[in-house]
C-alpha cells in the first residue's frame, strides 16, 4: 500500500507540480483587482508546490523512476517526466526558495509601488512552472522546451520597468539566451537525435552507444556548452549583468532560484545523462569545460572587483560561482562532481540572501552603490547580518554551507591532480574575499556619512525572507545531508562509485 502510494507520488508528482504552478496563473489573473488575495494565492501555491516536491522526495527511493509521458507531440518529440536525484536537487532548491522569494517580492513590490504587479506574479509563477518542468524532464527535448519557456516567461520580468535601460537590458537578455540556444543548442539537440537515436536520458549517457566519430561527438558537446547561455560561461555572460535592470526579486529569481540554475542543471544533464562520464572521459572534451570554467572564475572575479554597483558586483560573483559548479561537474572526478552539484543548492541559498539584502537596502534607503554603504550596518543590522553570513558563504568560510561544497571541490581537484584548478580555487577565494569583505567592513566599521543611526529596516516580509535564507545557509553547513546525498546519488549512478 505504502509502496503503491509512493509510486503514485513519483509518477504523478512532477506533472502535478508543473500543473500546480501553471494553475497559479489563472488564479492570479482572476484576483488581479484584489492584491491581498492575489499575493496570498501566490504564496499558497508556492508552499503547496514545495510540499509536493518534498513528498516526491520522500516517496522517491534511490535511482530514477520510469518516465511518465505527459503528452506526445510526435513520435520523436515527447514531453515526459521522471524523478531522479539530479532533478530533485534542482527542484527542491527552486521550490523551497520560491516560497521565500514570493514572500520577499510581496514586501518589495508593495514598498516600491511597482506597476503591473499582476503581470509580475503571473510571470513569476510561469517561470517556476518552467523550472519544475526542466527539473523533472526525462528527455532532452522536454528539457529544451522548458528551458526555452523559462527564457520567454522571464523576459517580461526583466523588462518590467519598461524604461529605455530596462528595454536595452531585456533585449540583451533575450538576444543572448534565445540566440545562443537557437544557434548552438538546437543543432546539438538535433545531432543528439540523429547520432544517438533517442532523446531519453540514460544514467550512463544516452550517447554511450553512438557510432558517430569522436569529432562529431566532441562538436556536439562544445555546441551544448556554447548554447546553454544560462550557465553564463564566458564569453557569453554579458546578459546576466544586463539583466540587473530588473526588480531585485527578479534578480534573485534569475540568479539563485531558476534561470542560472537551470543553465548549470542543463549542463550537468548533458555531462551525466547525455554523454555520460565515461564517454566524456574517453573523448577528453571535458577539458574544454574545465578550462572555460577556470577562465570564467578568475575573470569574473576580477571584473567584480571593479564594480561599484552592488547588484552588478553580485552578478559577476554569480558568474564566477556558477563556474564552480561547472568546474566540479567537468572535472569528472567523483568528489569534485559531488561538490559541484551540491553547490547548486548551497550557492542558491547564499546568493538569494545577497540579492534580498541588496533589494532591502534599496527599498529602505534607495542606495545602489557599494560606495554609499558606509555605516549601513548600524541602520539595518538584520539585513547586513544576513549579508555577512552570505558573504562568508561566497568566500567559502565556516559556518556556511558553501565550505562543504568547496571542500569537496578542492579534494576532487587534488585527487585528480589538477594543479591548475587548485590554483584557480585558491586565487578565486582570495578574490572573493577582496570584493566582498570591504562591503561588510564599510557597513559596520565606517561612519554613516549623513550621521543617521536610527533603525530603518525594509518591510517585514523582506526581512523575514532574508533572515530565513541566511539561516538556511548556516543550517546547511551543519546538516548538508539532503543535498549531498542527492549529489552523491547522481555521481554514483553515473558510474563514479568508489
Amino acid at each position: 500500500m505504502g509502496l503503491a502510494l509512493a509510486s503514485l507520488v513519483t509518477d504523478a508528482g512532477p506533472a502535478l507540480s508543473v500543473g500546480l504552478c501553471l494553475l497559479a496563473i489563472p488564479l492570479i489573473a482572476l484576483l488581479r483587482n484584489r492584491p491581498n488575495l492575489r499575493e496570498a494565492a501566490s504564496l499558497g501555491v508556492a508552499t503547496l508546490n514545495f510540499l509536493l516536491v518534498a513528498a516526491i522526495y520522500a516517496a522517491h527511493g534511490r535511482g530514477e523512476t520510469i518516465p511518465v509521458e505527459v503528452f506526445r507531440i510526435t513520435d520523436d518529440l515527447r514531453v515526459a517526466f521522471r524523478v531522479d536525484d539530479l532533478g530533485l536537487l534542482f527542484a527542491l532548491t527552486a521550490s523551497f526558495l520560491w516560497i521565500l522569494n514570493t514572500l520577499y517580492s510581496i514586501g518589495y513590490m508593495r514598498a516600491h509601488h511597482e506597476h503591473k504587479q499582476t503581470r509580475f506574479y503571473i510571470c513569476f509563477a510561469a517561470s517556476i512552472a518552467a523550472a519544475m518542468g526542466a527539473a523533472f524532464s526525462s528527455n532532452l527535448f522536454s528539457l529544451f522546451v522548458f528551458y526555452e519557456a523559462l527564457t520567454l516567461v522571464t523576459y517580461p520580468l526583466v523588462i518590467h520597468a519598461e524604461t529605455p535601460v530596462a528595454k536595452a537590458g531585456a533585449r540583451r537578455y533575450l538576444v543572448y539566451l534565445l540566440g545562443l540556444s537557437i544557434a548552438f543548442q538546437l543543432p546539438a539537440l538535433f545531432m543528439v537525435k540523429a547520432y544517438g537515436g533517442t532523446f531519453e536520458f540514460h544514467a550512463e549517457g544516452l550517447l554511450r552507444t553512438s557510432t558517430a566519430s569522436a569529432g562529431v561527438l566532441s562538436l556536439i558537446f562544445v555546441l551544448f556548452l556554447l548554447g546553454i547561455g544560462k550557465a553564463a560561461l564566458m564569453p557569453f555572460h554579458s546578459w546576466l549583468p544586463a539583466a540587473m535592470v530588473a526588480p531585485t526579486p527578479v534578480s534573485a529569481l534569475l540568479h539563485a532560484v531558476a534561470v542560472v540554475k537551470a543553465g548549470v542543471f542543463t549542463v550537468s544533464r548533458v555531462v551525466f545523462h547525455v554523454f555520460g562520464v565515461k564517454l566524456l572521459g574517453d573523448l577528453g572534451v571535458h577539458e574544454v569545460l574545465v578550462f572555460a570554467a577556470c577562465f570564467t572564475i578568475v575573470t569574473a572575479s576580477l571584473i567584480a572587483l571593479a564594480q561599484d554597483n552592488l547588484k552588478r558586483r553580485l552578478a559577476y560573483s554569480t558568474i564566477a560561482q556558477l563556474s564552480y559548479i561547472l568546474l566540479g561537474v567537468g572535472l569528472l572526478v567523483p568528489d569534485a562532481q559531488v561538490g559541484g552539484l551540491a553547490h547548486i543548492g548551497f550557492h542558491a541559498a547564499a546568493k538569494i540572501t545577497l540579492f534580498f539584502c541588496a533589494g532591502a537596502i534599496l527599498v529602505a534607503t534607495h542606495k545602489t552603490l557599494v560606495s554609499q554603504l558606509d555605516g549601513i550596518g548600524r541602520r539595518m543590522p538584520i539585513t547586513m547580518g544576513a549579508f555577512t553570513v552570505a558573504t562568508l558563504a561566497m568566500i567559502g568560510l565556516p559556518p556556511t554551507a558553501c565550505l562543504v561544497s568547496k571542500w569537496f571541490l578542492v579534494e576532487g581537484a587534488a585527487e585528480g591532480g589538477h594543479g591548475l584548478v587548485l590554483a584557480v580555487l585558491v586565487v578565486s577565494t582570495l578574490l572573493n574575499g577582496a570584493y566582498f569583505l570591504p562591503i561588510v567592513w564599510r557597513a559596520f566599521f565606517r561612519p554613516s556619512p549623513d550621521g543617521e543611526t536610527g533603525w530603518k529596516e525594509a518591510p517585514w516580509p523582506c526581512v523575514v525572507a532574508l533572515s530565513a535564507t541566511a539561516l538556511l545557509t548556516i543550517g546547511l553547513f551543519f546538516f548538508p545531508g539532503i543535498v549531498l546525498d542527492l549529489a552523491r546519488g547522481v555521481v554514483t549512478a553515473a558510474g563514479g562509485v568508489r
Partner: protein
Amino acid sequence: MDASLPALVVVVPMLAAILTALAGRWWRRHAWPVALLATAFAAAGSLRILWRAVHEGVVLYRMGGWPVPTGIPYRIDLLNGIVLAMVACVSFLSVLWMRESVKREIRQAGQASYYAVVLLFTTGFLGITITGDVFNLYVFLEIASITSYVLVAMGRRREGLFAGYQYLILGSIGATFVLIGIGHLYMATGSLAMTDIAARLSGALVDHPSVVHTSFAFITVGLAIKMALFPLHSWQPGAYTYAPSSASLLMAATATKVAAYAFYRFAFTVFGTHYVTARLPQVMDGIMVMAAAAMVVGPLFAVRQDNLKRMLAYSSVGQIGYVVLGAALVNASAMTGSIAHFWNHAASKGALFAVVGIVVLRSGSPHIDNLRGLGRRAPWTAAAMTVAALSLVGVPLTGGFVTKYYLALGTLETGRGVLLAFILLSSLLTAVYMWRCLQRVWFADPDLEPAVTREAPWTMRVATLTFGAACLVFGVFAWIPVDIASAAARALLGEN
C-alpha cells in the same frame, strides 16, 4: 455524395463563383454568405476526403467514368489530401475574415465580383491540387493565375496595378514553361494521366531521354517561378505588398505552396523518385542550393522592411525554402518536415497576414510602427500574432519547430549537416524581424498614441484566432499532421 465528393469540392466553389458574379448586381449583400458557404463546403469536403485518404488509401474519382489514361481522373493520396485540406480551410477562414476588409478596400459595386474572383481563385488552386492529369493541372493553374493577377491589381494604390502586371508577365512565362514541359512529357509517353506517365516513363527514358530531361527542366523552372523560389521570386514582394489585405492573406497562405506541391507531384509521382535520384542528382542538388539560399536571403530582406506586408512577403520567400528543401533532400524525415510545413506555414502566415490586415483596417497603413497599441487595445489579435510569430521562428510547442526538427534530422541523415547552419541562420533572422514586430505590439512606449485603438470585428477575430490556434495545435498535437506527412513522404519515396 461521398463518392462524388472530389468533384463537388471543386465544382461547388466554381458554381458559387458564377452565381455570385451573375447575381451580384441584385444580390450584393449575399455575396459574402454564398462565398462563405461554398468555401465551408469545400473545407468540410476536403477534410472528409483527407480522412478517407488516411483510412482507405488513395481516393480515385474518374471524371465522366472514363478509364484512367483515356479520361481525366481526380486522384487524392495523402500528399494532395494534405494540400487540398490546407487550401480549402485557408480559403474558408480567409473568406470569413475578409468581410470587413472587403467593405473597406473594395468599391461597393465590385464587391460581389470580388468574391466571385476569390472563389475562382480557390477553385483554381483546389483543381491544381486534386487533379491526376497534367494538362488539367495546367488549365486550373491558369484559372488560379489569372485570378491572382487580378486580386493583386485590386489594391487601392496604383502600384498594385503594376505589381499585378509584373506578376502576370512572370506568371505567364512560368505557366508557359509548364505547358512546354507537359508537351515534352506527352511527346515522350503519349499520355497525360500522372500515374500512366509514371508507368511509361522508364520506356520513354530509353527512347527519348533528352525529351524527358527537358520536360523536367521546364516544369521545374516554371513551377519555381510560380512558387517564388529564390532567385525567381521577384514578382512576389510587390504582389503581396500592394494587393488588398484580403488577397494578400489568401495568396500568402496558399498560392506559392500549391506550386510547391505541384513540384512534389511532378518530381516524385510523375517522374518518380528513382528518376530524380538516379538520373538527376545534380539537379536536385541545385534545387537544394536554391532552397537553402532562399531560406537565408528571404529573411535577410525581411529584416530591413518597415512595411509589414513586404516583410511578410520576403518571409514567404524564405519559408518556401523549407518546403522545397525536403523535396531536394529526397529523405523521408526531411520530407515529413516539409510536407508538415504546408500546414504550419499556412497557419502562421495566415495568422500574420490576418493581423496585418486588421492593422491596416484599424490604422490605415501596414507600417510597422502601427503595431503599437495592439497588445493593449486588441489583446486577442496580439496573442494570435505572438503565437504565429513564435511558430515562424520555430519555437518548441509551435508548428514551426516540428518542421525544423524533421528537416534538420533529414539534413543530418543525408550527411548534409552544413544545411543545418542555413536552417538555424534562417531561424535567427526570422526571430530578428518578428521580434521587431512583437516588441512594438507588447512593449510600445505607453506615452505614444496607440495606432490600433480597438479590437477587430468578430468575423476577423474568429478567423485570426483560428489561424493562431492552428499554429499551437500543429505544435502541441503535432502528431496529427506529422503522422500523415510522414506516411505521405514514405509513400512518395516508395518506403514503408
